[in-house]
């Protein structure tokens, strides 16, 4: 019998706010949080919309020593990790230090910090580059700082796989729990809304150039023309079931019941994309037939080709209009490594409330035979959820979540 891995704490950083309650209140009614970029002047760039986290002042959340040595993404991650521990009712300092670890996903690392230091290097000289550049812009900075700040000395690591990395990190944390870790902090938070991060997004070629926040990121819509990047994500407390019972955990959101990741074949090979195989393998890992999945949180890439691939995979596995599908990320944009962990949070809250949040702004194209939940939230008894995430360059990941009685 495998050790079950439960989600027992949640912390988020989202364009709807830094609190789970704020995030859910906005998400369940499809409230828009996409707008014109304010963190830098976007006017020279061909795309100017993003999902920004408003009103985050790191000094309000972090010790002064940490603010100077961290990128915005790490400041958000440290804050969300603290919220997750609080939500779990766990004092990290009181735990056996080697039993608790941290695995996060990162897409960008501390890109804004790196940009500031590069600017100093070229405008003032190498003597002006901060000593903290040595780690603050590194992809592993979030895992490292969460570990140091909370005195966690268990397994630590970082996974990089664009959006898919967010699920892969949770799966890696689950492996550590199966091997004996009692508790893991896991998920991902990305924040890349600075010029250097922005040109990286633009180079990917899939950012929508629309200037209308509610008509920009439109997955599964006939008008789909790319996505809107956003910042944020989620960090979760994953816990071995026995540990959660022994300490009397107050919040048990769901079980991480299955996961798989695949890689797309070489372009032009003619072989099928890997998403369907990831779904099949994740269902097998969870020992659940497709008919028992109650809702799918789509990756929702927002380009005609990628939406077609995802809709085809869903139809192949679940049948025509076979399962409710939603993509609440249309109100906040794609958060890179933070997207899928936040979708896992959304799935956990959907299970808890029995309400599937809508895919706001989207008018579903009749070309896709999927039951997309649009405009209004849908009441439903949700016991299981499938979360999908794909990354630029061919990453596919799928995760199955299951209610815990």
């Amino acid at each position, binding site marked *: 019998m495998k050790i079950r891995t439960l989600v027992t704490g949640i912390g988020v950083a989202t364009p709807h706010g830094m609190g789970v309650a704020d995030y859910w209140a906005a998400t369940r009614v499809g409230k828009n949080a996409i707008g014109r970029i304010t963190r830098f002047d976007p006017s020279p760039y061909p795309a100017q919309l993003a999902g920004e986290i408003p009103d985050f002042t790191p000094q309000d959340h972090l*010790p*002064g*020593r*940490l*603010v*100077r*040595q961290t990128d915005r993404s790490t400041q958000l991650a440290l804050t969300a990790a603290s919220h997750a521990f609080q939500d779990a009712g766990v004092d990290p300092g009181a735990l056996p230090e080697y039993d608790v670890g941290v695995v996060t996903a990162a897409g960008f690392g501390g890109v804004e910090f790196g940009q500031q230091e590069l600017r100093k290097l070229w405008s003032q000289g190498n*003597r*002006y580059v*901060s*000593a*903290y550049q*040595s780690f603050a812009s590194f992809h592993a900075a979030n895992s490292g700082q969460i570990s140091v700040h909370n005195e966690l000395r268990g397994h630590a690591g970082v996974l990089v796989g664009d959006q898919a990395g967010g699920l892969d990190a949770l799966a890696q944390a689950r492996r550590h729990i199966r091997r004996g870790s009692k508790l893991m902090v896991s998920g991902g938070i990305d924040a890349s809304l600075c010029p250097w991060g922005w040109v990286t997004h633009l180079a990917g070629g899939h950012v929508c150039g629309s200037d209308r926040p509610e008509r920009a990121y439109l997955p599964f819509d006939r008008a789909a023309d790319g996505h809107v990047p956003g910042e944020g994500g989620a960090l979760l407390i994953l816990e071995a079931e026995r540990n959660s019972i022994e300490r009397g955990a107050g919040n048990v959101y769901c079980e991480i019941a299955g996961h798989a990741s695949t890689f797309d074949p070489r372009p032009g090979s003619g072989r099928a994309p890997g998403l369907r195989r990831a779904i099949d393998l994740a269902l097998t890992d969870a020992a659940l037939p497709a008919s028992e999945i109650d809702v799918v949180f789509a990756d929702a890439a927002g380009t005609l080709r990628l939406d077609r691939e995802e809709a085809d995979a869903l139809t192949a596995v679940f049948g025509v209009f076979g399962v409710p599908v939603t993509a609440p990320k249309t109100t906040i944009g794609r958060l890179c490594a933070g997207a899928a962990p936040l979708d896992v949070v959304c799935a956990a809250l959907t299970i808890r409330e029995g309400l599937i949040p809508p895919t706001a702004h989207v008018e579903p194209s009749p070309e896709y035979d999927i039951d997309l939940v649009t405009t209004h939230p849908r009441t439903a008894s949700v016991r299981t959820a499938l979360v999908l995430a794909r990354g630029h360059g061919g990453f596919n990941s799928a995760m199955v979540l299951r209610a815990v009685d």
Partner: protein
Amino acid sequence: MSEQEFTLQDLTRILLDGAGADESVDLDGNILDTDFEVLGYESLALLETGGRIEREFGIELDDEVFTDNTTPRALVAAVNAQLARLASA
């Protein structure tokens, strides 16, 4: 070259700018003989601080300056000794 002096106030200002401060530490208090480590500054924070002192005062500090001088009093003296050498050169 006019003679500059490096004061404790300069040091605390540079520490704050470069590395911030722990809420539990009062840099305006009597810190002259408290080890940097006790004040919450690890090696990287001191590397950053040293770089800022070098830039602002136009001097070069030995790599060992923080291992040889573990308190603000000792560091202030070492920096001033370096400034004096520069002025008399």
